[in-house]
């Protein structure tokens, strides 16, 4: 909402009328309090420590807590910000505490504070007070009194997509240039500098030795849906061989995806987890994504690498996805079994499509005898015959039924059929071996037996693309990843 200059109201002739008269409809609207003042924004390093006046600032966010309650009627959000006058200058990543300013926002309600999910977003604060705290410039803003904030995304133009305190926020025309300049500077800064200095986080390899909470910068290798409320993030930062796990509530951190580089603000080492490495989060902990094209993200991704699937390590402790889908389906959204089997009559999107991506675990494979997974198929009669007693492998196809469940159907008393029928070519490469007479091909039979064992193990998951045909779901464009 842009501010307008105040307009004079026409004075009525009679004194008595002056008291009673209301502005006519034709008169210019009365100026709102504060609209006429132009905010003078100070650079972080140049804001006066001695004036005692309220300060107005713009800054690029490099760290933020989640809003948290400190006592019965107070909530706090604490951020670290930089700008062209105050930033971590060393390209190698090491800095000190004078390379940024902190902003502490106080409010009486949780919803009056910003939820920061990305580094690089730009925050504007009005009427903050500045002081030095532990040698650092600290801007304090009481949102419940007269301060306000607005957060603008790093990408994009103008002030669209902003979040802000209060019902509205002001934005003067002169601020367009300010915002565009700081945005441009931020994008360049993130591409050239590490932004978060190495003293501001701990490598995962050293996490177990930390006595208090610490910050982490790592790549998210996998986002596993543990249950309807929680995702389990698997993290690597290249400092050690191990992969770390952290539980992230879906409602709190909905925008974390596999492949993202994240900064975790305030984690602690869980010494009670003995079978896997786990980080614990507190109510004020935060997970912030690092811009994908930033120097920091590229370095961390290169160091972290990808976790290779190790068959021997599949022991049920960690969720393991055994399959991979064709690249052409990489962008497909994941649908739950509840959607595919129960909501089809009410969901128009599911009715209109026939190809879906879904994730499930296998409770049973039929037939139980692996050698019966392949059949000889007669196209004319549309019948399949067992290879038992046969020597050849003519017209061999896979005819396998998986009984599956997932998180959405965890508590009900159903399992669901997902078919691997390759008579039309769908899913022919699923087992990485062409269909054959398994009564004569012992090698193939042994391989399939191994797959059967892994697929029906606890915490083994299948990420598959399925096609709905004639009321059944058939696997396609998916294969086991080893």
């Amino acid at each position, binding site marked *: 909402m842009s501010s307008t200059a105040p307009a004079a109201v026409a004075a009525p002739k009679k004194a008595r009328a002056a008291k009673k008269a209301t502005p006519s409809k034709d008169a210019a609207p009365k100026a709102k309090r504060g609209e006429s003042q132009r905010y003078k924004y100070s650079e972080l390093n140049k804001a006066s420590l001695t004036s005692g006046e309220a300060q107005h600032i713009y800054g690029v966010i490099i760290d933020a807590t989640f809003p948290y309650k400190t006592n*019965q009627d107070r909530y706090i959000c604490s951020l670290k910000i930089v700008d062209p006058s105050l930033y971590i200058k060393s390209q190698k990543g090491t800095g000190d505490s004078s390379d940024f300013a902190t902003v502490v926002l106080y409010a009486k309600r949780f919803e009056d504070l910003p939820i920061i999910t990305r580094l690089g977003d730009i925050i504007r604060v009005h009427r903050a007070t500045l002081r030095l705290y532990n040698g650092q410039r600290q801007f304090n803003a009481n949102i419940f009194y007269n301060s306000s904030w607005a957060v603008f995304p790093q990408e994009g133009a103008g002030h669209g997509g902003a979040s802000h305190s209060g019902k509205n926020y002001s934005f003067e025309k002169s601020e367009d240039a300010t915002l565009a300049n700081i945005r441009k500077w931020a994008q360049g800064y993130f591409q050239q500098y590490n932004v978060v200095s190495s003293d501001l986080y701990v490598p995962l390899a050293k996490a177990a030795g930390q006595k208090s909470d610490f910050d982490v910068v790592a790549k998210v290798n996998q986002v596993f849906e*543990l*249950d309807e409320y*929680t995702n*389990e993030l698997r993290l690597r930062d290249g400092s050690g061989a191990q992969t770390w*796990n952290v*539980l992230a509530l879906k409602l709190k951190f909905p925008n974390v995806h596999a492949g993202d580089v994240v900064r975790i603000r305030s984690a*602690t080492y*869980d*010494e*009670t*987890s*003995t*079978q*896997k490495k*786990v980080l*614990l989060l*507190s109510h004020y902990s935060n997970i912030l994504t690092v811009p994908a094209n930033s120097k920091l993200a590229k370095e961390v991704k290169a160091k972290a690498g990808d976790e290779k699937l190790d068959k021997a390590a599949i*022991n*049920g*402790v960690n969720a393991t996805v055994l399959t991979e889908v064709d690249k052409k389906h990489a962008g497909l959204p994941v649908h739950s079994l509840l959607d*595919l*089997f129960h909501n*089809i009559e009410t969901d128009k999107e599911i009715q209109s499509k026939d190809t879906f991506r879904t994730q499930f*675990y296998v*409770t*049973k494979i*039929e*037939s139980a005898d692996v050698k019966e997974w392949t059949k000889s*198929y007669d196209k004319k*009669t*549309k*019948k*399949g015959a067992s290879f038992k007693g046969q020597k050849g492998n003519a017209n061999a196809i896979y*005819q396998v*039924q998986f*009984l599956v*469940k997932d998180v959405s159907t*965890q*508590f*009900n*008393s*159903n*399992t*669901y*059929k*997902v*078919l691997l*029928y390759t*008579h039309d070519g769908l899913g022919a490469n699923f087992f990485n071996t062409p269909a054959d007479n398994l009564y004569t091909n012992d090698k193939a039979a042994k391989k399939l037996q191994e797959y059967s064992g892994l697929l*029906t193990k*606890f*915490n083994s998951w299948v990420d598959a693309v399925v096609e*709905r*045909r*004639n*009321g*059944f*779901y*058939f696997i396609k464009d998916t294969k086991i990843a080893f």
Partner: protein
Amino acid sequence: MSKPAAQQSAFKQLFTEMLTQGGDFSKVNKDLKRPLKTYVKESYPFFLVTDGYFFVQAYFTKEAVAEFRSKFNNVNITDLHDRVIVLNSWSLEIRKVNSAETFTSYGNLEIRLIVNSFKPNLNERLNPTRYPINLFRDDELKTQIQQFRWNAINAAAGKAKSEIPDLARVQTASKGKVEGIVKIGSSKGDDFAEFSFKEGTTATLSLKDIFVQEKGKDASPAKDTTAVPKVKGGAKGKGKAAQKSAEKKAAGVSKSAEKVLKYTPSKSVAKKETPQKGAAGKQSAKKSVGGKKATPAMPSPGGKKSIKTTDQMSMNQFKKYLDWHEAKKGGKTIGKRSTTGKASTASGKASKRSKK
């Protein structure tokens, strides 16, 4: 594969072992069934105990509460917040619950800590090594509960009869109907309930009942459950405060009544409304204190705002009290008895005294 590190958390070790043993507490290692020293994180409305790492909810049997009261009758169970207690005799059992309603559960299963006997260590303080978190939000325990459920589901799925659709059938249009839902287990409802463990049925007392037994029905619980409950206050304190405020009000009203008494109405009204001279000076006897209606002669000794005289002694009762008192004290009288027949001021004081 390297040996897993020793488990730091007693609760996690016990609950894990319980799940490993299929929910059968009798199969849990005897070495783990020793008395447990725990710190009470919260005592009302939930009794949460912690081992320094995790908290779980403790459920008390009737015998446990009775034994505690007989040995520690000056200590309230619901006041044990921030104290150390030793669970001398306890057990674990699994129950099917709705996890959306029971926060100390996961996957619609709750492993309950049943306390059969416990005692407080009032002089001992424990500082938890970390802020205790809900054991049922722990990553590893969630995974173990999921495996517990998975085992049951797999067993049921193994028994389920489902046909493999033949190739001809899957190539025939189904008129929009989705096929392939297979019911497992024999439970009638939609929820899966085909578990092999024997669900626990130990009767325990609700904490609300314990609270009411200790504090009374009218006592309202402290809103801030993290605050240490205090024994002082309650009905007595309220009564004293109310009495003081009523006396202050009575004093203020008596001043107003004085002004009213000084006002001289018209002759026709004077006879009816102007109080008699004799009694006018006896302010305590004549000034009204409460309401618009006819009020008692004396301020209510109980400090109540009520205009009724329900709490006052009648003259007959007061005379009986005086006789009783004289008999007890050997004939000494409380106050002066008026010889002139006027209402004695001492009677007002005596009646007040009798109410205290």
